[in-house]
């Protein structure tokens, strides 16, 4: 479900668009790249084409520029190791180490070493979870629509926009459509008491 298919869940940001060349460079420089090593945890972030998370080639502008609209996606990949499984395997390895060394308890340094080794093994085998946010940047209006309302994803999107294009994406509200005086008055207000017999 996205801006090109099906129903859409989205939010808006004010973000003046830089010129086309800057956007092109920003996309290319911050495009999705597969991690070099299979052992990684932190989210890996990069731009990809709107129609394929595996494709991060923006050299053909006809694939992402549609008149005033720029259409592309943010890919966020993350590897996670289930904590309970990690602890279970770790406990077993500690028991094995104790048996092999005739000790009742493993020293902290050994436990840490075993944990690091185990974590690396598990991360090597873990499949990353991938999340995609489709972005439509209306360059005429300076408005970005992103097809997510997840705060964590929006936070990553805002950071990657800043890193890639040097723009600060501000959450959009309809207050911008009001005269300055009305807006100032409105922002001083709090919600009314709408209960039956309210304000009594």
């Amino acid at each position: 479900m996205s801006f090109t298919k099906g129903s859409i869940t989205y939010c808006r940001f004010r973000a003046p668009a830089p010129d086309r060349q800057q956007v092109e460079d920003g996309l290319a420089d911050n495009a999705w790249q597969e991690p070099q090593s299979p052992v990684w945890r932190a989210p890996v972030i990069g731009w990809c084409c709107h129609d394929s998370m595996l494709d991060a080639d923006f050299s053909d502008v006809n694939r992402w520029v549609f008149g005033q609209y720029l259409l592309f996606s943010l890919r966020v990949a993350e590897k996670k190791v289930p904590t309970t499984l990690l602890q279970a395997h770790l406990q077993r390895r500690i028991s094995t180490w104790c048996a092999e060394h005739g000790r009742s308890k493993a020293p902290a340094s050994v436990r840490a070493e075993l944990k690091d080794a185990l974590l690396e093994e598990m991360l090597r085998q873990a499949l990353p979870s991938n999340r995609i946010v489709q972005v439509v940047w209306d360059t005429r209006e300076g408005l970005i629509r992103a097809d997510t309302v997840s705060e964590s994803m929006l936070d990553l999107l805002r950071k990657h926009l800043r890193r890639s294009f040097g723009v600060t994406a501000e959450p959009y509200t309809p207050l911008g459509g009001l005269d300055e005086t009305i807006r100032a008055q409105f922002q001083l207000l709090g919600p009314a008491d709408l209960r039956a017999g309210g304000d009594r």
Partner: protein
Amino acid sequence: MSGDEQRLAPGMASEFLCWLWWLTERDGGRVSLDETRGHECLVLEAWVDDKLRFCVAGDSKVVAAFMGESTGSTPPARETLSIGRSVADLSLFLRREDRQYVVTIDAEHLHRRGLKLPAHAADGLEALVFERMFLVEEVDYLLDRLFCQYALVRTSSRWLTVVAAIREWAAAPVDEVTTDGDTR
């Protein structure tokens, strides 16, 4: 304009949704948007569709949910408002000319969820993008216009009349709803 200048005070988005619900019920689903600077007067059809949920003010946890046809017209939903619950989100049906939309709007950030666009056909990706963005922008335009109309009423002396009308409407049995509280 900075983000701070655009920020909605807590509870105001919920109040807007409540006003919108009342307005659509009061006018039988036919809503007039007044002419404002740079925007012509227009009439659209709008009503609460099949979802209306409530929370306690200041807490996003949903405490009451109404689903199904004509949800906005049901006395229990109005009664929930009259006892002081805030609208958490609602699904809204919109029709302008022959274009129909259904969208859920949340009262935290006014994000749009599950926007259903009218049937559209386009030849090629570029035409599809233009067509769908035209429809998305129309929904945003209509909702922003509705919000501006609410803000104009909210900052005027008419608001006291509107509050009284909303309270009366919320507390009244279904057949006794008045049509007071003209927003003009």
